[in-house]
C-alpha cells in the first residue's frame, strides 16, 4: 500500500457522531428502496426540466411523482408499520478483510416474541395489550398473516462496509421464526458495531419500506489477513536466538503422553519418526507427544507509531503479527501475547488450538487503525509482571528494550531488497539501522509491502 492510498483511506468518511445531514441520509437509506430513491431524485429533476420551454410533460410527471409519494407515505403506515415484526438471534460471522460477511437473523411476524420488536416507541398501554395477547394465544391480533419480500439489512455501518442488496424472503405468521440472511462486503480490518440490523418491509409500490430494527447489539469482526510464515530461522539464529531454540526442540520438552501422528516438520526429533506411516505414504511422519514446558515465547506487538511514515505500516505489522502468532500457535509455543502493555488472554494452554487462534485474531481485529491526527507515543515496554520467557517484539521502528530478546521491524525497505532479509543484510538495506546498538542477529527488517507467504 502506498503512502498516498494509506493517507486517502485514513481520512474519515463519516462523522463520529451523526448530525442532521447524516440523519437525513439514514432516512434516505432506510426508508426508501432503490426504486424509491430513483423516484424521489426524479422529482427535483423534473422540476428543473419543467423550466425548459416546451417541456410541460415534466410538470405533469412532477405532479404524478409528488402524488405517488403522498399516497406511498399513507400506504407505508397502513401496510408496513401496522405489522408486528420481530428480529431475534442475530449472528455475525467474523471474516478476513476483503471477504463477504454473512449476517443471520430469525424473523417472525405477529409471533409472541414480537414484544422485543415492539420496542421503545410504543405506548405503555399498547405494550400491555401486546403482552396480554402474547400470554394468551401466542399470536397478536392485527397485522398481516403473511409478508412477502422482506429483507434483512444492516444500516448505519462504518463507510468501509457495504450492505449487499440481497434476496427477499416470505415470512408467515404460521411459520413462526424464520432464518433470513444478508451479506456485507468488508474492506478494512476492524471491529465494527452493527448499529442497525433491521428487517425491511416494503409498502405495496415497493418504493418505500419500514425497517423493523433488531433490539440487541451486534458486532462484525474483520480479521487481518495473516501473512503466511513459511520458515522462521531468524527466531533461533545467533546469540539472541539461544533462548528461543529450546522452544523448537521437542526433545527437550517432550512428555510421555502420546497424542497422535502428524506429518514431519522441520525441527522434529528423528527418534519420534513414525516408520510405518513413513513407509506407507512415502513421506515422513512423526509421533506427537504432549509437551511439558513453560509458557512459551512471548509475542509483543508494539503499535506505537509517532510519524506518518511509520503509521502507514501499522496494518502490515498487524498482518505479520497474525502470521507469526499463528505460526507459534501451530507449534504450541506461544506463551503470552501482548498488544503494547496490555496482555491478551488467549485461553488456557490446554484449550483447543482453534479457540486460541480466534482470541488472537479477535484481539488483532480490535486494534484501532492508524489515525491521521493522533498516534500512540513510544514508551518502554512495561508489562505488569516481569516476563520470564523469551520475548519477540514486532514493531514499526527499531528500539532499545531491555526485556526484549528479538525485534521484527516492519518498515519500507529500499528498492531491490529481498522481501524478507537476513539480519546480516538488513543493515545494508535500512539506512537508519542503529547497528551499533544491536547485534545483527537481534533485529530483522521486514518489508511492509510483503503480502504473500514469506520466510523470515
Amino acid at each position: 500500500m502506498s503512502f498516498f492510498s494509506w493517507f486517502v483511506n485514513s481520512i474519515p468518511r463519516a462523522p463520529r457522531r451523526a448530525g442532521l445531514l447524516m440523519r437525513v441520509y439514514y432516512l434516505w437509506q432506510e426508508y426508501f428502496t432503490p426504486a424509491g430513491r430513483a423516484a424521489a431524485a426524479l422529482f427535483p429533476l423534473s422540476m428543473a426540466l419543467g423550466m425548459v420551454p416546451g417541456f410541460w410533460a415534466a410538470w405533469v410527471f412532477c405532479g404524478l411523482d409528488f402524488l405517488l409519494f403522498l399516497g406511498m407515505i399513507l400506504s407505508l403506515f397502513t401496510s408496513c408499520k401496522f405489522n408486528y415484526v420481530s428480529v431475534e438471534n442475530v449472528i455475525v460471522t467474523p471474516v478476513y478483510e476483503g471477504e463477504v460477511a454473512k449476517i443471520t437473523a430469525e424473523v417472525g411476524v405477529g409471533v409472541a416474541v414480537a414484544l422485543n420488536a415492539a420496542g421503545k416507541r410504543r405506548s405503555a398501554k399498547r405494550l400491555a395489550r401486546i403482552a396480554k395477547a402474547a400470554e394468551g394465544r401466542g399470536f397478536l391480533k392485527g397485522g398481516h398473516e403473511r409478508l412477502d419480500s422482506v429483507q434483512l439489512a444492516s444500516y448505519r455501518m462504518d463507510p468501509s462496509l457495504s450492505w449487499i442488496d440481497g434476496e427477499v424472503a416470505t415470512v408467515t405468521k404460521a411459520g413462526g421464526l424464520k432464518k433470513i440472511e444478508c451479506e456485507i462486503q468488508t474492506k478494512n480490518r476492524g471491529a465494527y458495531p452493527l448499529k442497525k440490523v433491521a428487517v425491511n418491509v416494503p409498502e405495496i409500490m415497493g418504493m418505500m419500506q419500514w425497517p423493523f430494527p433488531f433490539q440487541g447489539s451486534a458486532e462484525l469482526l474483520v480479521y487481518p489477513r495473516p501473512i503466511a510464515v513459511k520458515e522462521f530461522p531468524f527466531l533461533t539464529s545467533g546469540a539472541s536466538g539461544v533462548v528461543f531454540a529450546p522452544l523448537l526442540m521437542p526433545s527437550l520438552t517432550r512428555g510421555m503422553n502420546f497424542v497422535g501422528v502428524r506429518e514431519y516438520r522441520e525441527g522434529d526429533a528423528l527418534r519420534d519418526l513414525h516408520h510405518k506411516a513413513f513407509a506407507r505414504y512415502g513421506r515422513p511422519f512423526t509421533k506427537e507427544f504432549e509437551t511439558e514446558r513453560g509458557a512459551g515465547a512471548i509475542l509483543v506487538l508494539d503499535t506505537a507509531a509517532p510519524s506518518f511514515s511509520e503509521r502507514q505500516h501499522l496494518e502490515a505489522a498487524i498482518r505479520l503479527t497474525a502470521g507469526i502468532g499463528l505460526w507459534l500457535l501451530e507449534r504450541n509455543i506461544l506463551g503470552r501475547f501482548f498488544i503494547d502493555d496490555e496482555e491478551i488472554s488467549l485461553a488456557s494452554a490446554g484449550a483447543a488450538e482453534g479457540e486460541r487462534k480466534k482470541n488472537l485474531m479477535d484481539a488483532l481485529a480490535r486494534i484501532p487503525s492508524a489515525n491521521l491526527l493522533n498516534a500512540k507515543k513510544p514508551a518502554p515496554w512495561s508489562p505488569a509482571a516481569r516476563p520470564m520467557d523469551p520475548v519477540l517484539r514486532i514493531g514499526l521502528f527499531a528500539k532499545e528494550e531491555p526485556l526484549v530478546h528479538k525485534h521484527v521491524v516492519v518498515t519500507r525497505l529500499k528498492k531491490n531488497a529481498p522481501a524478507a532479509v537476513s539480519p546480516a543484510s538488513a543493515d545494508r538495506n535500512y539506512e537508519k539501522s542503529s547497528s551499533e546498538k544491536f547485534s545483527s542477529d537481534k533485529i530483522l527488517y521486514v518489508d511492509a509491502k510483503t503480502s504473500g507467504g514469506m520466510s523470515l
Partner: protein
Amino acid sequence: MKKEIVDIRYWAKILFLMLASFNLGHTFEVTILGLAFAVYFAVIGFVNATSRREFFKRPSYNKIPAYGAIVPLALYWVMTPGVEGGVNPLMVFLPGLYLLFLAALQERSRGNGGYEAFVAFDGVAVLLFGFFMIPKGWAPVGFVGLLLAVFAYSRRGTAWYKYLLFVLLIIGLAGISYGGWRYWHNHRSQYGAEWAAEYELRERVMGFDPVAVLGSFGSNYNSKYNDQVVLRVWDTLPSKYLKAASYEKYIAGIWKLPTKAVAKMEPAYYQVDYAVFETADSVTRMVGESVDVVAAQPFARQVWVQSTLKNFGFVFAPYGAVGFAARDVDSLHYYAGGMVQGLNSNGKRSDWHYFVCDGSAVNVGGKCDLPDSLLAVSDGDLLLSDRYLPLLDSVINTMGLRSDFVESQEEILRKMLAFFKDNFTYSLQVPGLSRWQGSSSDPSRDPLAVFWRTKQGFCEYYATLATLTLRRVGIPARYATGFANPEVVEGRPYAIFRRKHAHSWVEAFVDGRWVIFDPTPPMLTPLGNEPNWFAVKWEGLQGRAARLMHFLKEGEWRRTVDSWQNYTQKITDGMAIYVALALAFVAFIFLKSRNVLKNRQKKIVAKSNNAILWSKKLEQSEKELARLGLRRDAGETVGTFAKRVQAYFEQMNGDEVKLKAQRERISAAIKVLEDYESCRWRR
C-alpha cells in the same frame, strides 16, 4: 450466491427500458438509435435472465466509459446553437442520450457494480426526456411506460385490490391538487400586480423607452437596484458617453423619437450568429483585402457589449461608431446623430458589438469619418412647442442669452453652464412635482416650469431645459440619453455601466459641428456606496465567465463546428451510413461467433493432443527404464514410481562404471516422469 429473480416484474422492467429508448429515438427523430438501444436491452435482459443470472457472472461496471461519455456530449451540448422562440431539441436530447447510455451500462452489470437505483432513475428520466414537446397522440405511450415501471418495482405478492385502493387514493389526491391549482389560476390576479411591477423594475432599464417620460431615470437612481450592472463594455479605454437615443419632440413632460430614420442598414456580412451593419461600405474591414488578412489586422476595432437586462432595442454605442454587429436581426435603423434602433425585435435580451476607429493612424483617407448624410441637421432639431415659448423666453432673459448680450454660440453654452452651476442644485427629487403632472393643460404646472421655479432636479430636467432653450436661440439641439462615466477598475479588461450611470445630455450644433453639452451640475453626494473588495472581485469573475461563454457559444471557431454539423447532418440524412453500420454489425457478429466456435474446437483438439503426447512420452521413458529392470507396478502412480527410480539412481551413485553408461538415460527418464506428474493433468 446472489442471482436475479426472473419473473413477470423483471420482464416488465426490460419492456419498460425498451419502450423508453424507442420513445427517445422517436421523439428526436433518431428512431434507428432508439431501436438499437431497445434491441440491446432485449438482449441484455435475456442474457441476464439466463446465462448471466448469477450476479458475479456479469461483467463488472466500468466507470471509464460512463464518465468518459460526458466529455463529447457536454462539448456538443455547450456548442449547440440556440433557436428562435424556444430550446434547441438537442439540448434535451443529449442528456437524454447520456442517461440512456448509463442505463444500458448499469443494467448490463447490475449486481456486479451496477445498481438498481440507477437503472430506475436513468430509465424513467429517459422516458421523461422523450416527452419533450410530446409528439401528437403519443401521451398514452408515456403513460404505459410509467405503468410498466411502477409495476416492475412494485412489491411482490400483493393483492390486486390494494393497488386499486392506491389508484383511488391517487385520483383523490390528484383531484384535490387540480382543484387547488384551478383556484390559484382564477385568483392569481390578486397577487400578481405587485410582483409584475417588481419584475419590471428588476429586469428592465427604465427611461430608454421610445417615448421617454421626464423623470423616469429617477427609478434608476433611487431604486434598490441602482448598483445593478447593466452593460459590460469590453474595452479598456471606453468612451465617456455611451449613447442610446436622441429625441426630437418635447411635449408635456414627454420626449419622442424622430419620426424618420436617415438610413436603414442591411447586414454587410456575418460573424457566426452576428450580422454586421456598416455606416459605409467595407468600413469595418479593409477594402479589397482577403478575409484572412482582415481577421489578422482589422481596420476598425470591434468592442463587445454585454447587456444584462432588456433595453428597448437601442444599440448603445459611443459617438462615431462606424459599425454594429447584432444577433437575430435582419436590419437596423440609423437615426441622425448616431442613434441605432431595432435590436430585440423578438423580445429577447441580446448582446451586440460596435466598431470604432482609434486615432488618425488607421483613419487613412478619412474612411472612418461618418458620411455627412448621417450627421446633417434636420428640421426636428429646432422643433419647439408654442406653449413653452413664454417660459423659454424668461429663461433666456434670466440667463442673459439674448443675441445682443452674447458674442458667439459657444458663449451661450458657457453662460448657460455657469448659470446652472451657480443657481441650481442637483437633487434626485423635484419638489412639488408629481409623476403625471406633465399632462396638465396649465403651463405653470409643466415639469419644466416647476423645475425652473424650484431650481432643483437631475440630469433629465437640465438637459431638457437646455435643449429647448438652445433651440429657442436658434441653435439646433437634441436631447440625448444613455450612460456616462463608466466604472473602470485597474486590471479589469472591460468597463461597466451600472443602472445609476444612466444619464441625459445635450447634443448642440455649434459653429458648424455637433458637440456634446452636459449642463447638469456635479452631484455633491455620490449615488450608492463604493463596491467593496469582494464585490469588485466577484464582478471581475462574472464578467470574465460571461466573456468565456461568449467565446464558446459565439466565437469564430464555431464556424468549423457548423460546417462539421452540416457534414454530419448530411451523412446521417443519407442511407449509406446505416448500411455501413448494419454491415459492420453483421461482420462483428460473424467474427465473434466464428471465434467462439473455432476456440472451442481448438481447445478440444489441444486437450486430446496433449493427452496423446504425454502418454507417448511416458511409454517411451518406461521402455527405457524397463531395460534396466525398473518396471512400474500395477496400481503404482507415476509419482511414486519416479521417486523409486530416483532412489535407485541415488543408490547407484557409488558404482561409477555402471553409472557412466546409464546416467543420462535415467535422469532423462526421471525428468519425463516428473514432468508427466506435474503437467499431464494441468488444464
